[in-house]
């Protein structure tokens, strides 16, 4: 169980804005005033369609972009604007990323052991070659690969195995926070389950905290403790994974969940899909995240709050 105490916050994102082409005609507000926290040992799922800004958030957190505005605190320390140096390299050790495409994210000219050990080398975590190979072998075994695999090249592996190599590389520097950007969407169904189970096991053993970015809603629900739903660069709803699925409050979340195909023909035959009119968001009303029921936040304007409260009551999320 995740402890939602303020002292257990690993990551605090507040009013994060990431604009591209600022001031030009084609300015893009990829991430627009987003706030959320992630707690120790938690998996926070970030879902949304392509172009919703979910990947941009992940990249801004791990310092691949410089945010336009806002603050990102990691273990209580501000990391926006951090310059190269000791704190920065500490940050790079504590925070790691697993990428979407296991074919593009591994250097085809490097042996597996060198890919996995790159972080070990940079941070001088191994005293000598022997210790280095020992660590690599242990890591490979941790992610379910054979230690004999270490002298092979990436092309010799299947998609699922490559994603395991990517995970081993991320674990090499012993991070406590991992950003996983669509880590399973390039994999086959039966392999997806293997990788998700591996991520869950590692989380338990190593007390990891995850930001899990995905568009596959059923898998996100399964792995996440809480989920945030994004649309057009804005966060629309945040709640516990089970609750957001069984009792979505925002119309966009409802429409998104109603569109997920379910492997049950009878359900599919009677499925009602809800359409969502995005125009509602663009009426220039001021909206902010409001806690409608305990730990269930919805982006709403002042006059919409009663409507959401009513919905929450109808779903019996709050007592009168």
């Amino acid at each position, binding site marked *: 169980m995740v402890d939602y105490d303020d002292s257990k916050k690993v990551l605090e994102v507040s009013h994060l804005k990431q604009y591209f082409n600022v001031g030009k005609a084609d300015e893009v507000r990829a991430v627009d005033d987003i706030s959320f926290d992630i707690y120790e040992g938690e998996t926070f799922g970030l879902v949304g*369609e*392509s172009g919703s800004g979910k990947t941009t958030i992940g990249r801004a957190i791990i310092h691949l972009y410089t945010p336009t505005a806002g603050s990102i605190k990691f273990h209580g320390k501000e990391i926006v604007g951090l310059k190269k140096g000791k704190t920065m390299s500490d940050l790079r050790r504590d925070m790691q990323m697993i990428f979407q495409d296991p074919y593009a994210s591994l250097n085809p000219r490097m042996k597996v052991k060198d890919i996995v050990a790159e972080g070990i080398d940079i941070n001088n975590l191994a005293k000598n070659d022997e210790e280095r190979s020992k660590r690599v072998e242990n890591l490979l075994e941790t992610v379910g690969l054979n230690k004999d695999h270490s002298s092979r090249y990436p092309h010799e592996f*299947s*998609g*699922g*195995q490559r994603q395991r190599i990517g995970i081993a590389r991320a674990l090499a520097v012993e991070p406590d926070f991992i950003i996983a950007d669509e880590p399973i969407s390039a994999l*086959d*169904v*039966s*392999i*997806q*389950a*293997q990788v*998700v*189970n591996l991520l*869950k096991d590692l989380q338990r053993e190593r007390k990891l905290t995850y930001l899990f970015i995905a*568009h596959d*809603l*059923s*898998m996100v*629900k*399964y792995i996440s403790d809480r989920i945030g739903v994004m649309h057009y660069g804005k966060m629309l709803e945040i709640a516990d994974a089970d609750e957001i*699925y*069984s009792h979505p409050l925002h119309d966009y979340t409802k*429409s*998104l969940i*109603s*569109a*997920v*195909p*379910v*492997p*049950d*023909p*009878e*359900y*599919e*035959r009677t*499925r009602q*899909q809800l359409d*969502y009119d995005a125009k509602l968001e663009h009426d220039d009303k001021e909206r902010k995240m409001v806690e409608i029921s305990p730990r269930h936040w919805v982006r709403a304007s002042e006059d919409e709050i009663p409507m959401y409260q009513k919905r929450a009551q109808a779903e019996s999320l709050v007592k009168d």
Partner: protein
Amino acid sequence: MESKEKILEVKDLTINFNTYAGTVKAIRDVSFDLNKGETLAIVGESGSGKTVTTRSIMGLNASNADVAKGSIMFHDKDILKMSDKEIEAMRGAEIAEIFQDPMTSLDPTMKIGRQIAEPLMIHKGMKKDKAMSQALEMMKLVGITDAEHRINDYPHQFSGGMRQRIVIAIALINYPEIIIADEPTTALDVTIQAQILRLMKELQDKISTSIIFITHDLGVVAGMADRVAVMYAGKIVEFGTVDEIFYDPKHPYTWGLLNSMPTMDTADDSLPSIPGTPPDLLDPPKGDSFAPRNAYAMKIDTEQEPPFFKVSDTHYAATWLLHPDAPEVTPPAQIIERQKKYKEMQQELAEEAKKPVKEEEEL
């Protein structure tokens, strides 16, 4: 039951690819048929042979493909014996394909109206004006808004969902008898996917075409298919009606596939996965190729390939578990749940049937 008209029959199709590394046995003894107006889904992981199967129907396999055995009867002609000219006349006219990636399956340098009209000009020798006006009608049919103004736009001016609508328009323009849809919605967002699937169903009703739907997403299959064929390592391992496959599956691989998709009800730390990886088709294992990953495998699985065992008139599965001498096994809990639901559904249907039929109102 309505009478079924068989329009395509694939029999014992076996295709090898000759590569530097050796002969890849891509598909082995694949047989299925397709009835008029129905949707057949072919499900399987990458490398299971779904795409090779449909490419052979379209005559699109690479030049190193070697058809070792089998036939593909379209009406009364064998596609595998057709000349290039005959195949060209058929492809895009009688059998059309919707490809996976709408970003790469359109010509970026050609206006979309022209791309939609092209099959008409090629196959029916239609004049450009007339073809363009039919293309416009088709654009409206597939739901491209403001079609009059957009007919002269280029593909990059459209979103992914709209591009897939254009691809569908191209496939449908000649009212083909068969549409092959190879993962048509995999590259799209869920909400767009739902729109496209809805559109495909509506259009299928309108022009009564048959669809072969290839996908790895069982959720999509449940919503689209009338019948389902499950492929593994180049072979069909189970086929049946959509209800039979989802509620009463018999093959352990189908069990594994259904189980490894989390549903709303999946408990928090119990996602069952299929261990291991699919076999190397350069050298498929002896016996049942699923045996090394199969928790229910018996000794015979490693020695002899299982034949198809009949479950019902429409449902067959290739697993030794169905042999009369095989021991009784308990399927995974989730599958038992599905079977229970199926029994309840059938009972409801039976009771419905017992009720006195209300006299139909006379027109």
